[in-house]
């Protein structure tokens, strides 16, 4: 009798949901009742619409540059949820919170819908034809040097088109600017390994010694690294991998380390050399170079106790192969390159190169590989603007007005540009300065190809395909726009391509063989490609030049105390907000920062000891002042930070962008000093020194953490056990 009851319930449930589907379409603009939507007969529905059934399409995530492949759930022609595409070697069916929020980027109520032309300080809606005409007109008689194109990281066919477009003016001013790209590390890697981004095999390492590389949180390709991390923890035959994190401010990776070492800011390189010295395995000029770095000195300069250095050296010696990573916290100094070099040197000494640091495969189409760039590029653009060099400035997928270090005064210089065109999803800070703003499709509406900068096994090209019809009729894909603009310049070459899709298809089919479509007819190859969402290629691997050089390796002694600005400012990268381009996605705003659980706001992390000195308690509104400027926000006492440093997360403090971002928190970019790495000229993010004053106001910090302050009390809630007392090999 009970069973029958249960069956009935299951049945009812199912009924329930299809009911729910109807019910809920009532609470939105899709309601048939209020006539906002025309009734579609499913008798002759498009083949991808199966009423009540979710169908899945492969595409690629464009929320960051990691290049994860996604698998979008579509129902009744609406994309509902993004899941990972298991076929991708990068994310293997997994995703991060940021990627998930892609749908909220797509459905965002604050997205631009119409082309806008500046009229005084208002934007007036114009047609695309008019917009194109306007661009053409503005470009008339403008030489290549007077045109600048600022963009975020672009790759694939979009990059090709962009290149061709600029080439059509003979313009060389393509500035690629990714605010948080690891520019210095790339350069250092190039020197040390001969590759900007080698493949790191975290999963093969027995010990990972990371100098501020937040590879779990926000560094390069977090989802991929997280998966490797999981294997690394399981280890081979139960020999669990050990993670040591060296950084002044605890990142998510640091929080998961077996040992988190709060090194004095900027002395990472010294510690690295100290460890080489302690290892005592180095020979020749390396040994000579590190001779000076004995434990006493290193310990004194870095603040790491000698015993700790011994332990690290010991375990590195004992467990091989290991892997040493240089990340954000190491590179963000005027001597960042030196730090990174020293750290990479450690990899050589430990013989990891070739084992855990391997050559990554590259796609055989150099014109498609991602264009990289960092603040150095922005700086030169900024100088150009200051000098009033540019008559026309294009801006795509970058928001420098928000992310440029305050000291550059970018906003002021921007106004010196003649005619500013912004291709944008939102009316963000930079778009607000533009004269012409062109609304873009979201990544879920658009066609495209993507080449990830960080390649996992083999090389791959990601396909972007629309998961649904355009949400707003008047947005266009960047590809289509570039094509249209190219048609203005070179009508002959491009007249056959009616739109970007046509171009893309043709371009791919041209290289069918190279893309592994040998022997397949065009349609089946194309359909297969779209179905898979990924093209895997053997790729070309250039072996790493495993030369360990100490030439020109000079590490400055740690900065002595600055009386006026006693503290080091660490602009930390929040795992979901990153450089702030996604701050208008409510899921990200409301997903708590893992370490402080603060939501919807900015905060200053101060070590309790320092806070006690300054008489600051949680919730005090403090003013953080640098040479460049000052910002006010709430204080949060955080044990995971070096007492001589404070940290403010990036990504908040928007003055535009949208309802979920505007007016929340503060933007630390604004107070960053213009200090640059001596070698690469990239921004030294961690070199800004500040002082902190109480303002007297106090607020209640909005966080998920309770009054108990993240302590376990009484009952065992989150259990932990020493590695001596477990036997992972027995585990399933």
């Amino acid at each position: 009798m009970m069973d029958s009851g249960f069956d009935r319930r299951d049945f009812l449930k199912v009924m329930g949901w299809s009911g729910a589907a109807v019910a809920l379409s009532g609470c939105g603009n899709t309601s048939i009742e209020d006539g906002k939507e025309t009734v579609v007969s499913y008798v002759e529905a498009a083949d991808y619409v199966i009423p009540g059934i979710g169908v899945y399409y492969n595409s690629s995530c464009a929320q960051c540059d990691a290049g994860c492949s996604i698998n979008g759930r579509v129902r009744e022609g609406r994309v509902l949820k993004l899941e990972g595409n298991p076929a991708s070697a990068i994310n293997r069916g997994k995703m991060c919170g940021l990627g998930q929020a892609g749908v909220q980027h797509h459905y965002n109520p604050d997205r631009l819908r119409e082309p806008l032309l500046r009229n005084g300080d208002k934007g007036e809606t114009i047609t695309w034809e008019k917009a194109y005409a306007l661009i053409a007109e503005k470009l008339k008689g403008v030489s290549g040097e007077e045109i600048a194109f600022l963009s975020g990281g672009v790759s694939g066919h979009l990059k090709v088109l962009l290149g061709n477009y600029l080439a059509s003016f003979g313009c060389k001013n393509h500035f690629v600017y990714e605010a948080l790209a690891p520019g210095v590390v790339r350069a250092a890697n190039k020197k040390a390994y001969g590759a900007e981004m080698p493949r790191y095999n975290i999963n093969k390492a027995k010990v990972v010694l990371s100098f501020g590389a937040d590879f779990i949180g926000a560094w390069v390709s977090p989802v991929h690294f997280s998966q490797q991390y999981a294997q690394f923890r399981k280890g081979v035959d139960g020999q669990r991998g050990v993670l040591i994190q060296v950084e002044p401010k605890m990142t998510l990776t640091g929080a998961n380390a077996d040992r988190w070492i709060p090194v004095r800011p900027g002395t990472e390189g010294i510690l690295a050399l100290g460890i080489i010295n302690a290892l005592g395995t180095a020979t020749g000029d390396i040994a000579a170079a590190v001779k000076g770095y004995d434990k006493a000195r290193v310990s004194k300069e870095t603040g790491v106790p000698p015993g700790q250095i011994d332990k690290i050296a010991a375990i590195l010696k004992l467990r091989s192969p290991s892997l040493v990573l240089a990340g954000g916290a190491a590179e963000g100094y005027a001597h960042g390159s030196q730090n990174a070099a020293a750290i990479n040197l450690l990899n050589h000494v430990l013989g990891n190169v070739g084992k855990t640091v391997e050559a990554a495969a590259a796609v055989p189409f150099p014109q498609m590989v991602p264009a990289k760039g960092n603040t150095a590029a922005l700086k030169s653009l900024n100088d150009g603007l200051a000098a009033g060099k540019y008559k026309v400035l294009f801006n795509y997928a970058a928001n420098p007005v928000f992310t440029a270090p305050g000291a550059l005064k970018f906003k002021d210089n921007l106004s010196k540009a003649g005619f500013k065109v912004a291709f944008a999803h939102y009316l963000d800070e930079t778009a607000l300065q533009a004269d012409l703003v062109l609304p873009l499709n979201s990544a879920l509406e658009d066609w495209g190809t993507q080449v990830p900068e960080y390649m996992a096994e083999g090389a791959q090209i990601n396909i972007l395909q629309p998961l649904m019809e355009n949400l707003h009729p008047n947005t266009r894909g960047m590809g289509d726009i570039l094509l249209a603009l190219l048609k203005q310049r070179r009508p002959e070459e491009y007249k056959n391509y009616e739109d970007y899709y046509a171009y893309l298809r043709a371009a791919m089919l041209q290289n069918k063989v190279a893309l592994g479509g040998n022997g397949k007819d065009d349609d089946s190859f194309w359909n297969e490609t779209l179905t898979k969402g990924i093209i895997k290629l053997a790729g070309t691997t250039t072996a790493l030049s495993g030369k360990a050089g100490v030439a020109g390796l000079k590490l400055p002694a740690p900065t002595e105390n600055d009386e006026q600005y006693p503290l080091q400012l660490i602009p930390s990268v929040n795992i979901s907000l990153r450089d702030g381009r996604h701050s208008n996605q409510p899921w990200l705003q409301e997903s708590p920062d893992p370490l402080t659980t603060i939501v919807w706001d900015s905060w200053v992390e101060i070590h309790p000891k320092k806070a006690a000195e300054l008489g600051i308690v949680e919730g005090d509104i403090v003013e953080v002042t640098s040479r460049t400027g000052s910002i006010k926000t709430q204080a949060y006492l955080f044990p995971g930070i070096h007492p001589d440093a404070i940290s403010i997360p990036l990504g908040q403090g928007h003055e535009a962008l949208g309802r979920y971002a505007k007016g929340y928190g503060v933007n630390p970019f604004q107070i960053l000093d213009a200090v640059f790495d001596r070698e690469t000229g990239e921004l030294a993010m961690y070199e800004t020194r500040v002082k902190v004053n109480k303002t007297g106001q106090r607020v209640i910090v909005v966080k998920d953490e309770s009054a108990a302050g993240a302590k376990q009390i009484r009952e065992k809630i989150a259990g932990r056990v020493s590695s001596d007392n477990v036997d992972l090999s027995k585990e399933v």
Partner: protein
Amino acid sequence: MSKRHLLALFSNFDAAEAVVKELRDVRINGFDADKDMIVKSPIEHPEVEEFLGYKPVHVQWFTLGGALMGGLLGFFLISGAQANFYAQIKGGKPIVPFPPNFVLTYEMFILGGVFISVLGFLICAGLPARRSPLYSTKVSEDQIGILVKSDENAANTLKAIFAKHNALEIQEEAGK
């Protein structure tokens, strides 16, 4: 032969008691002290019962019945409801758990008891009642009334008795 009512009012219980005694003793035909005599008093007064002689009260039986009925009804309503075809485990407890059902049964027991005894009261006390032919508002104030019913011819003897015990007032039904 037609009957008529007499109502006599007395100032205190002693007088009333004397009258009642006498009415019992004297043999008047057409008047039966047990049936035809009603004593009305402003207060609930045990002595009245004493000199009127024992009369049984049955309310408590209603009470008993009501309580038991309520209890049983309660238990089976609840257990039955718990055991209907949507029966689902809650908190790992049995689907028909005793402690809660006991509590509710207990409440229903009392509820039944109270309500049915009131019902019993109304029935036994014959309420709501039609007003008797003779009534004096004095009764609800401070005087004791004795209402008798007798044949025409007995009336006078009764009046005499009332008068003898110096009744404050004697009402009689208009003759027919």
